[in-house]
């Protein structure tokens, strides 16, 4: 029994790391632009493909290509924003939602055309490795790496937001865009920057997912759905809230998968059950501010 509980804790933590990676970019972009990027999952997918091709054709480990994939993601996200969303920032919110949703569909289908729907994956040695903490407690090495990177990314992001000039400006835009422009901050440029940064997190996440999940053009949507649920749990615009939401969801899913008979099937529904509960009890999410004044 004790080892079961311990295994649940271990698995929850590791899954929470994966979920944090999926959601943190979405939360960052929303916090600044107030636009939910429904193409975020597909950006993750492109990161996974980039890492895959780096692995099979150039023999570069995903953990190494991650850096380049992240840089490409930043550039891609910035350009995507400049070419599309930047033109409709003054349009009603529904147009922006439709645009990002449409972008997601385009990205997905371009991937099908380019790379077919076949499942692929990178196969570095650590993808299959596990550690046994005791006779019956297992730690999957791939997920442990993902967990470590998630912690590192979040710490870096929070430090940047807290102490850098641009990070402070990012928080200012998130809280009050008109007042931010009165500080001499180019709000539109900050939108583009946050979108680029968000995409960079997305593609980096993809590189990590390349050895955890099967890579297909359709892998983005389930990732988006999970990430969406997590940031609503956490309160949409709070990075710390997002991390809490990710670990909360991971713990709930893992516990149900272990404890409830046939629980693995049920676990998939947990995200939405939690979502409904949180929206009833605390509509702003755990740490969120969106709609606080409304």
């Amino acid at each position: 029994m004790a080892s079961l509980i311990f295994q649940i804790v271990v698995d929850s933590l590791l899954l929470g790391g994966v979920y944090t990676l999926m959601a943190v970019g979405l939360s960052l972009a929303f916090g600044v632009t107030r636009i939910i990027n429904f193409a975020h999952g597909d950006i993750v997918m492109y990161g996974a493909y980039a890492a895959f091709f780096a692995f099979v054709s150039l023999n570069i480990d995903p953990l190494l290509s991650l850096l380049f994939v992240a840089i490409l993601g930043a550039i891609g996200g910035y350009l995507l924003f400049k070419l599309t969303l930047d033109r409709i920032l003054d349009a009603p919110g529904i147009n922006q939602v439709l645009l990002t949703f449409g972008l997601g569909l385009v990205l997905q289908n371009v991937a099908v055309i380019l790379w077919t729907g076949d499942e692929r994956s990178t196969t570095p040695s650590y993808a299959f490795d596990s550690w046994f903490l005791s006779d019956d407690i297992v730690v999957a090495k791939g997920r442990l790496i993902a967990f470590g990177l998630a912690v590192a990314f979040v710490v870096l992001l929070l430090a940047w937001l807290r102490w850098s000039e641009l990070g402070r400006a990012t928080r200012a835009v998130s809280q009050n865009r008109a007042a931010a422009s009165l500080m001499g901050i180019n709000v539109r440029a900050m939108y583009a920057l946050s979108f680029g940064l968000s995409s960079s997190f997305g593609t980096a996440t993809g590189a990590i997912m390349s050895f955890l999940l099967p890579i297909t053009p359709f892998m983005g949507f389930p990732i988006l759905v999970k990430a969406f649920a997590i940031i609503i749990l956490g309160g949409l615009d709070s990075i710390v809230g997002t991390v809490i939401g990710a670990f909360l969801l991971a713990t709930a899913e893992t516990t149900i998968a272990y404890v409830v008979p046939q629980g693995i099937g049920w676990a998939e529904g947990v995200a939405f059950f939690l979502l409904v509960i949180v929206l009833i009890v605390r509509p702003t999410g755990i740490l969120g501010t969106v709609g606080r004044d409304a």
Partner: protein
Amino acid sequence: MTAAMLELDNIRAGYNDAIAVENISLTVGQSEVVCLLGANGAGKTTTMRVVTGLIPLLGGTIRYNGEDISQMPPHERVTAGICLSPEGRQVFPDLTVMENLSLGSFNRRARRNRAQTLDQVLTLFPKLAERSGQAAGLMSGGEQQMLAIGRALMGQPKLLALDEPSLGLSPKMVSTVFESIQTIARSGITILLVEQNTRAALSIAQRGYVLSAGRVVHEGTAADLAQSEMVQKAFVGAAFTKQSVRKSRRERRLAESNPGGAGA
């Protein structure tokens, strides 16, 4: 009057389809303190928003130091030296006082002198130094107003725009804030001040414009405006001195006893 720093020439602006100000022309000279007076909805705040670029100009021109800035985006106007302390203060509530002040000097020109400007602002508002680590949203209205003005000063303004600095403050706090504004004015910074508290505004301004229904209805030196019937009629509330109330009662009595007689 010295050379005009800010010139509004027949400006028109509004929100969606509603025009809020029309044909407003005014000038603010170098190192001058100019106030805009008027009742609620007269167009004062709209004028401030147009000057700082928060809302688009629909007609007319805005010149700043001779340059046409009508289409310049707001963040570039800040870099050019136009800094606004907005109506309702608009501090960043979850950021600390110090972070708010640092953001005030985000623009490239002011960032270089941040430490020095910060010293000056904290000397002017010692309260902000005491509260430097506190979240801005948790401070009192008066403290937030000091922060909003201090934050605008951090941008090293050449033209400081102050929108309703006395709004929602206790009378004691109003005089504290206005003393600080006077100190700022003496340091040579040009000030464009919007106020409903006419008496406080005219006590520190050299000239003023009276707005009503989106137009300039009167202008003059502060001394003239302080005497003017027009100014007192343009408002309700704060501007109504006991004297003017008494006077208007007398007028009403006269009008009642003399129906059809020549009005005021």
